[in-house]
């Protein structure tokens, strides 16, 4: 068991435990520490590959900034677009599945990009080719069929942020 990689998992587990129980009484703190140590030791190696990266404050700051930007800008725009399409009487649709390449290394960065794409309405990752590093994205309003253009329109900003956070 790698103790260093267990520490970030322990911290995550403890935070989730305290938020879920919603109190900081001695009973919760003691049981929280016990649960966090057990879960961290069991799952640490599976979850965390590089413990130094997970505890880097600069990356966490980027993560917080990205979360705010994502919720207040990207999500709002995408929601407005899809709701307009769903409620307008003519229902303008031009769906297509396009290739969107990505250029990040780690699994977590890739998953962040994919989940960000899927969580914004209007684009859904249908399939992924990890060897050639391509997402196949179902796009509700396909403006282009060129992969480079599509990447610029769909995933460029997510990718830059994911690179800063995880790579």
């Amino acid at each position, binding site marked *: 068991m790698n103790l260093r990689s267990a520490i970030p998992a322990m911290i995550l587990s403890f935070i989730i435990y305290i*938020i879920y129980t919603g109190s900081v009484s001695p009973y919760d703190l003691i049981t929280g520490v016990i649960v966090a140590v057990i879960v961290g030791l069991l799952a640490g190696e599976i979850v965390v590959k590089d413990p130094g990266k997970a505890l880097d404050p600069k990356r966490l700051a980027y993560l917080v900034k990205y979360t705010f930007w994502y919720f207040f800008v990207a*999500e709002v725009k995408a*929601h407005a677009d899809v*709701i307009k399409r769903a*409620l307008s009487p003519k229902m303008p649709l031009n769906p297509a599945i396009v290739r969107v390449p990505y250029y990040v290394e780690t699994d977590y960065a890739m998953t962040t990009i*994919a989940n960000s794409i899927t969580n914004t309405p209007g684009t859904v*990752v249908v*399939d992924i080719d990890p060897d050639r590093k391509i997402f196949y994205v179902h796009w509700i309003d*396909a403006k282009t069929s060129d992969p480079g253009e599509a990447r610029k329109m769909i995933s460029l900003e997510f990718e830059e942020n994911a690179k800063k956070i995880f790579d």
Partner: protein
Amino acid sequence: MILNALLIYIGEALVAVGVFCDLAASIGMIRFPNFYTRLHAATVGTIGGAVVPLVGVALMALGADWLGNYRFFLAGASIVAGILILLLAPVGSHVLAQAAHKAGLAPREPIAFDHLEEDRRRGEEK
């Protein structure tokens, strides 16, 4: 007291946004023509219609002091539920779409072009 009122008003605004997204998503679910386009409506329903109101409920609960000490449990559990939905829902849509495309479960029309189908055919020819 003012802080409580502020929290409750913000929470109510978020819940109202969530209700609107929910309604739009359900109408979209009925109106859109095929499975792949309905995926987008379902995304509106999960992010706008579930995560945002859960955060709103957490804020409302923090402001509602007549609920007693267990209101922190309400707030914390709804935040954790929101985080889990935010992580899990996109994966659910992704695996469903992947299975539907791979096994040909749902019709793809109308569709402008389909690069995934092209690449899959090319892979089979090789």
